[in-house]
C-alpha cells in the first residue's frame, strides 16, 4: 500500500511537470521548474514573457483542469462501483453523461448563433447532468425498499431518453455536428484559469466526501441487508455518495466534456494494485486518476501536434493495455 501510494504521488508529480514542460514549443525542463520555484519566491525565472505565457496561461490551467477532472472521475467511478457493488459502474451510470450531452448540444445548436459562446455550454451541460441524476433518483431511489438495481435501471431509462433527445437535436442542426462531436469526446483544449476556478470548489468538496465514504463502502460490500444489520444507514450513505459523485462529475463534465474510460478503468487498476478495501482504493484513485488524465492529455496534444487527438480516445488507448497487463498479472476482479 505504502509503495503504491508513494509511486502514485511520484507519478503525479512527473505527470504534472510533464504537463507543463512537454508541448510543441520546446522549453527546457530546468527552466520551467526554475520558473515554478520563482513563483513561490525561490530564485528567479529565466523564461521569456512568451514562454511564461505558454506555461502559465496555456499549459498550467490545462494541466490543473486535467488533474481535477482525472481525480474526480476516478474517485466517482470507484464510489459508484462500491455503492452499486457493480464492477461495470462508472460516473455516467445515472445519466450524468446523457444529461450533460443534451444540455451541451442544446447550447451549441441553439445558443451559439454560428459563433462559439462558451459560457452557455458548460452551464447547460451542468444543468442537464444534474437534472438527469435528480430524475433518476426520483424514479428509482426514493422509496424505502428501492434497491441499487432499481436505481441503475432508472439510470438506463433516463440516459436512453436523453441520448435520443440529444441525437435528435444534433441531427436537426448538421452545421453544428462537428462541434457537438468534439464536445462529446471530451477535451482539455479550452481550459483556462476561469474554468479551473469554476470547477475547484465542486471537486475539492466532492472528492473529500467520496474519500470519506471509504469505510461505509467497505461495509456495503456485504450487501444492503447485512450492512443495515451492522448499523449502517444504507439509504443515507447511498444518497450522500451518489450526490457527491454526481455533482463533482457534472461540474467536471461541464468544463471538459465527456471524457470516457477514466472513471471505470482507474479504480480497477488501483483495485488490482492495493486490494479491495475502499479506504485504500479511493485516495489512491484520486492521485492515480489525476496523473493518468494529465499524461493522457499530454499524449493527446503532442503525438499529432499541432492537431490534437480526442482525449477520450487516448484514455482508452493508454488505459486498456495497462489494464490488460495488470489484469493478466494479478487476481480476478472483485468489487
Amino acid at each position, binding site marked *: 500500500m505504502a509503495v503504491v501510494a508513494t509511486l502514485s504521488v511520484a507519478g503525479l508529480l512527473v505527470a504534472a511537470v510533464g504537463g507543463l514542460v512537454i508541448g510543441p514549443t520546446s522549453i527546457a525542463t530546468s527552466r520551467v521548474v526554475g520558473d515554478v520555484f520563482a513563483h513561490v519566491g525561490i530564485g528567479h525565472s529565466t523564461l521569456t514573457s512568451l514562454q511564461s505565457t505558454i506555461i502559465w496561461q496555456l499549459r498550467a490551467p490545462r494541466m490543473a483542469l486535467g488533474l481535477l477532472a482525472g481525480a474526480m472521475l476516478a474517485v466517482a467511478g470507484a464510489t459508484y462501483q462500491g455503492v452499486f457493488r457493480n464492477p461495470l459502474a462508472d460516473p455516467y451510470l445515472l445519466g450524468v453523461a446523457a444529461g450533460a450531452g443534451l444540455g451541451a448540444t442544446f447550447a451549441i445548436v441553439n445558443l451559439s448563433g454560428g459563433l462559439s459562446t462558451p459560457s452557455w455550454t458548460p452551464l447547460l451541460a451542468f444543468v442537464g447532468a444534474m437534472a438527469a441524476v435528480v430524475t433518476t433518483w426520483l424514479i428509482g431511489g426514493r422509496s424505502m425498499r428501492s434497491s441499487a438495481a432499481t436505481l441503475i435501471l432508472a439510470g438506463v431509462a433516463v440516459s436512453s431518453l436523453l441520448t435520443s433527445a440529444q441525437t435528435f437535436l444534433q441531427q436537426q442542426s448538421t452545421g453544428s455536428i462537428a462541434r457537438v462531436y468534439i464536445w462529446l469526446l471530451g477535451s482539455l483544449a479550452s481550459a483556462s484559469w476561469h474554468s479551473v476556478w469554476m470547477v475547484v470548489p465542486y471537486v475539492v468538496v466532492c472528492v473529500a466526501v467520496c474519500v470519506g465514504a471509504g469505510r*461505509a463502502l467497505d461495509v456495503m*460490500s456485504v450487501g444492503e441487508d447485512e450492512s*443495515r*444489520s*451492522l*448499523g*449502517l444507514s444504507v439509504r443515507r450513505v447511498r444518497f450522500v455518495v451518489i450526490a457527491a459523485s454526481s455533482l463533482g462529475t457534472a461540474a467536471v463534465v461541464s468544463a471538459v466534456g465527456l471524457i470516457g474510460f477514466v472513471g471505470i478503468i482507474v479504480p480497477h487498476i488501483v483495485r488490482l494494485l492495493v486490494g*479491495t478495501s475502499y479506504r485504500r482504493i479511493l485516495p489512491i484513485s484520486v492521485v492515480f486518476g489525476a496523473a493518468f488524465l494529465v499524461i493522457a492529455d499530454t499524449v493527446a496534444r503532442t503525438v499529432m501536434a499541432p492537431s490534437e487527438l480526442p482525449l477520450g480516445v487516448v484514455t482508452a488507448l493508454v488505459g486498456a493495455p495497462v489494464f490488460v497487463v495488470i489484469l493478466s498479472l494479478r*487476481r480476478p476482479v*472483485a468489487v
Partner: protein
Amino acid sequence: MSQVELRELSVNAGSKVLVSKVSLAVEAGTWCTVIGPNGAGKTSLVEAVAGLRRPSHGSVHIGGSEIGSMGERERARSVALVPQHPVVPAGMSVYDYVALGRLAYHGLFRSPGAGDKRVIESVFERLALSDFRNRDVATLSGGERQRMVLARAFVQSTMVIVLDEPITGLDLRHQMELLELLKGEVDACGLTVIATLHDLTLAGQFADRLVLLDRGEVVLDGPSHEVVRSDELASRYAMNLRVIDVDGADVVVPVRHGGPSGTSNALRGEAVTGATRWPIS
C-alpha cells in the same frame, strides 16, 4: 420483562400475508427456534425481529424498546443477524470481516479502538478463528465461513442474536460444532437466540423453546420436547414423522407414506435397542 417481544406482528409483501398477527415473548437467555414447512414465513419473521423488514402491523420490541423507533446503530447494538446466505466479499480478510461487527460502536469516521479490538480478539479466541485472521474470506470452507459470520454477530456484543438457517450447507459435524458454539455463548453470556432451522432433531436438541409456524401463523409454541412429539407437527409438514429417544435426545425421523416397504425394520425404528418410539401419525 421479555428480551424479545412480538406484538401482533404481521408482515405483508404486497397483498400476500407472510406473517399474520404473531405474538411472542422470549425471555432473556432463552434459545427459541422457529420451525415450519417452506413458505411458512420463518425468514420474514426473523427479518422483522432483526429490524430488516418493516411490520405491516404490530411491533417488535427488543429489551423493551420498539425496534422501529431505534436508530440504525442502536439497533445493531441490540440485535445481531446471521443471514441464511451471507455475502462473502472476496478480497477482504477474515479479521476485517469480523471487525465490521464493531461498526455500531466506533462509527464510520473512526477506526476500531482498543476496546473494540479486545472484543474482536476475545471472539477470535472463543471461536478458534485466530489461524484464519489474515485469510481471504473467499478461501474459507463452508464451516469456517459460517463460524466467521457467527463471529461477526458475536462482536456486535448484542443481547439478542437472530439466525436464519445458520447450518444450511454444512456437514453434520460442522452443524453440531456451530450450534454447540452458539449454545456455549447462550449459557455463558445469557444470550437470547431467535433462530430458524429445518432440521427438527437439531432444533429440538438445542432450543429451549420451539415455535411452529405455518402459513404465517403460530400453530404450536412450547418446550422443545413437547413440540417435537406433537401430532400437530406431522400434520403441518403433511408427512409421517416418528420421534425416537436416543440417549435422552429426541430424534425426529421421517417415514415414507404407507410404511417403509422394502426397508429393514431397523430403519423403521422398531429394532433400535433401548429406544422409545413416539408414534405421531
